């Protein structure tokens, strides 16, 4: 029993907000079922609350268990059996109890509702373990958008069919099988990638746990690694031919940011383009986005890279001692300067990525003001990138502080983006764009130079971060 409680506590400790909200939703759902059902649509409200709460809870639970299920964990006595017992208790709480309550209250379609709850839990859990599973649901969304009449007819027919319930049960079991199998399998830990690489396909950004990669992820990783290897060899060869400061900087970049060479960036953009196109196909057939939203989203994606710099530089500290000895700087300031210069390349990379995503968005949404979007994206992504790199380089070391700083930067950048769109729209490309560039790039460069000075002033640190 104690082990089950400890397993339940795991996600609550790691994600207390999610745990609290999910369990409040569970309470609210049961209260709706018990108190509102005889009078109105209490069952529907309760079922919706439960499905949402269950989906979130199981997504968080899977994320926690995925990092907890390391090979060493399986040495705990009867770990698998206790995990199964916890799973049963969890299913009883999120599915069994509400379903029994619904049956007792004679709620129509109670059995189907219970099965759908099980499916919601299985979906959340499966998406938490294997992110690619969420792709399985995209075709359904596409279908629902393209042919709502057909989907309505199918749902109506399904409600009448005796096969629906066993089929849904089968899907839920299949999802659980897909998620539990890799989680409970003991595999070799893949070698880590650079902690500064965050957005590459198949690499998680949120946790430092060993990455789990699907076959597709492994294939992408193989491509990226081969490209990184070639880029390093080229940089080495050029540096040997003529050891200039610029080539030395490139060499350091190839070490710290192995997947930020031209070819790897192109590959990443291509992969993102495929996924973005799929997303747009799914999302745009039902409602029409304001094209500028796509531009804002592109800037957000480009900026999402920078929080990894703060986390990564912290994790890299012990490794950087070797780089320090290798570079043999004359002063510590020179060494800090070398690192800051090497990382600065992320700003133009972020801007180019944002522009590429914006172009893609312009094409997919048939935007009416493409040049406006491109101009604003160019200015805001550059300014935002400079600020993001600056604050993550010298910003808070703890996770909460970093998240707050990140949220502030993202909100500020978004405010600038929308203000920029309005400004260029109102004053034209020259005056509006000029004013926007003056404000955003001026601020960005100011913050970057200040942060750079502060970073150079600091002593390099080579101590491993506290876990």
């Amino acid at each position: 029993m104690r082990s089950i409680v400890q397993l339940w506590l795991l996600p609550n400790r790691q994600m207390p907000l999610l745990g609290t909200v999910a369990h409040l939703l569970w309470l609210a759902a049961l209260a709706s079922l018990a108190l509102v059902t005889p009078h109105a649509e209490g069952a529907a409200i309760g079922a919706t609350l439960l499905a949402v709460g269950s989906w979130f809870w199981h997504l968080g639970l899977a994320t926690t268990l995925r990092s907890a299920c390391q090979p060493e964990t399986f040495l705990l006595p009867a770990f698998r059996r206790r995990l199964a017992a916890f799973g049963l208790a969890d299913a009883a709480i999120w599915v069994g109890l509400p379903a029994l309550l619904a049956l007792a209250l004679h709620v129509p379609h109670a059995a189907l509702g219970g099965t759908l709850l099980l499916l919601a839990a299985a979906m959340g859990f499966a998406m938490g373990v294997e992110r690619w599973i969420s792709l399985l649901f995209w075709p359904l969304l596409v279908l629902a958008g393209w042919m709502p009449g057909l989907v309505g007819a199918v749902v109506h027919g399904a409600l009448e069919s005796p096969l629906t319930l066993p089929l849904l049960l089968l899907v839920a079991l299949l999802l659980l099988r897909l998620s539990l199998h890799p989680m409970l399998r003991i595999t070799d830990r893949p070698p880590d990638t650079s902690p500064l690489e965050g957005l590459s396909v198949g690499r998680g950004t949120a946790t430092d746990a060993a990455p789990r990669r699907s076959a597709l992820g492994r294939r992408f990783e193989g491509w990226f690694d081969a490209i990184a290897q070639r880029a390093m060899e080229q940089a080495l060869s050029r540096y040997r031919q003529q050891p200039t400061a610029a080539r030395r900087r490139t060499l350091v970049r190839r070490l710290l940011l192995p997947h930020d060479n031209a070819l790897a960036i192109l590959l990443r953009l291509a992969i993102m383009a495929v996924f973005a196109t799929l997303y747009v196909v799914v999302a745009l057939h039902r409602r029409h986005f304001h094209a500028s939203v796509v531009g804002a989203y592109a800037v957000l994606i480009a900026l999402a890279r920078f929080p990894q710099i703060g986390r990564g530089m912290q994790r890299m500290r012990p490794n950087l001692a070797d780089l320090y000895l290798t570079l043999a700087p004359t002063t510590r300031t020179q060494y800090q300067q070398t690192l800051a210069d090497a990382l600065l390349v992320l700003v133009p990379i972020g801007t180019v990525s944002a522009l590429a995503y914006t172009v893609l968005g312009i094409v997919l949404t048939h935007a009416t003001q493409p040049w406006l979007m491109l101009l604003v994206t160019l200015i805001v992504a550059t300014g935002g990138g400079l600020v993001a790199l600056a604050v993550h380089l010298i910003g808070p070391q703890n996770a909460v502080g970093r998240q707050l700083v990140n949220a502030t930067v993202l909100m500020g950048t978004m405010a600038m983006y929308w203000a920029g769109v309005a400004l260029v729209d109102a004053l034209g490309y020259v005056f509006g764009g000029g004013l926007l560039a003056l404000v955003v790039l001026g601020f960005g460069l100011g913050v970057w130079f200040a942060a750079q000075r502060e970073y150079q002033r600091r002593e390099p640190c080579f101590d491993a971060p506290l876990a």
Partner: protein
Amino acid sequence: MATLLPFPVQPAAPVKEPAPVLRVQGLRKAFEGREVLRGVDWTVPAGRVIGLLGRNGAGKTTLLRCLLGLAPVDAGSIELFGVPMTEPGGERLHRVGFVPQSFDLFPWMKVRAYLDFTAAFYDRWNHALAARLLDEWQLDPAQKIGRLSQGQRQKLAIVRAIAPEPDLLVLDEPVASLDPQARRAFMAELLALMGAPGKTVIFSTHITADLERADADIALLRDGLIHFVRPLAELKSRLCHAVLSRPAGWTTPPAMAGVLKARVAGASLHLLLEDVPAERLHQLAKDEEASLRIEMPTLEDLFVELA
């Protein structure tokens, strides 16, 4: 009961000492108020192999990292190759080879790429030596560092540290993860490479047999200070371990010049002695009506007694 008496100060040697590679004065370092190094004074002459001994948590790793500027110091001064270590000083760092306690370097890189990268920055890099060691130590150059075992990573760290043929090699427990064959091979390479004039090695280890093989000078770090630095041969020739036993046991150890440490265990009195002739010990045994056993201590015995 154990009593540790101050180690007697040795008279200055008449021979002219070579210029020191490293000079440390009053080095202090604390972590969150806990003082690890409490005013370390230490001079390392060129051309010596120094074994840094100390118990777990004595501050060996901290001291070595401070020496190379990898950790900030709270007080004191460090001179490396005769120049204050206030700044790394450029090429001076290339005269130093460092093998850290754990080697988790760049796991996404392949062995060959990592060594090529490092070699590109050095003016002096013994490619033939690196290739030979990779081959002899069975390190696959095409393997990712993240795929290597801890022992293999340690071997790679050693290759990386000695390939530039440094004047000062600093090794922090370098052989802890190595198998006996690799350990012996490493020691043989180390002694051959660093046997050239002017080459200096400082290494911390708990494997005292390696220090005996290298005939190292022993530096003992205890209570945040370098307690002594002495050649191993001198330690072994001048120190001895005497055990006095009698049925009545011992309440206090007898006063005697040359006793470095006295410890009572049951009916036996264990004495670590320096420069005490056997005759005096026999006389003491006779006076105290005890049996006497004199042993030549190994370095490990000395470490256990003194650290």
